[in-house]
């Protein structure tokens, strides 16, 4: 009975075409998408780690692959996924501590997350890939 009343109160809008996500919403779904993609690529990362650290030939081969412009873009994207997950995660930890939970601060902090993660991606990406 109590369960019924709880369920009734919840508004629902699942028409994806009418939903315009605000920035914290975009940050949130990207947190999930980046986490899922990084999870799916775990065997690739482990294989790259293993080969590069155990076989000199593999290290040299991977280094030469890193010169490919298309792979550079892919790697830059993956670095950004990691850093977005990292920065958005720190924002969530602060929200857990009830820091910045009002609408205005939450919007500002989501802007900061995008600015910091993209800047760090460029700094680290350029140092690693160029």
């Amino acid at each position, binding site marked *: 009975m109590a369960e019924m009343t709880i369920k009734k109160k919840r508004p629902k809008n699942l028409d994806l075409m009418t939903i315009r996500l605000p920035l914290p919403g975009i940050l949130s779904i990207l947190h999930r998408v980046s*986490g899922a993609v990084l999870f799916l690529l775990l065997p690739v990362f482990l294989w790259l780690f293993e080969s590069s650290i155990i076989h000199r030939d593999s290290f040299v081969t991977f280094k030469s692959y890193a010169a490919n412009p298309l792979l550079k873009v892919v790697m830059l994207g993956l670095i950004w996924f990691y850093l977005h997950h990292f920065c958005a995660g720190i924002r969530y930890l602060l929200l857990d501590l009830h820091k910045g939970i009002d609408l205005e601060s939450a919007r500002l902090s989501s802007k900061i997350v995008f600015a910091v993660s993209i800047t760090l991606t460029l700094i680290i990406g350029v140092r690693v890939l160029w």
Partner: protein
Amino acid sequence: MVNRILVGAHYGLKDWVIQRATAIIMALYTVIFLVRVSIVGANSFEAWRGVFANGFMKYATFLFFVSLFYHAWIGIRDIWMDYIKPDGVRLLLMIATAAALVGYAGWAAQILWRM
């Protein structure tokens, strides 16, 4: 018959805490790793191996991997619970996820102590 409402209790609190604890461990490791790479460098095979050569980095890297796999378990399990409604399929995906992550943990240990 027991009529329970599955809200308001602390179901999942343990995982909630572990998800955050593992996140903090990984965040600290990320900083340590970046600092170490910027000192030791990773431009040659020897330098790259050198990043993980000492006992502390081996342990820290292993701790990072274990945190990562537990963190991934909670996150991916949440994704299955959110989007996959048939119980059988959901259970199958959860088992596959857990099985893969346990395998990765063994693989990571083997990489670190074989090098």
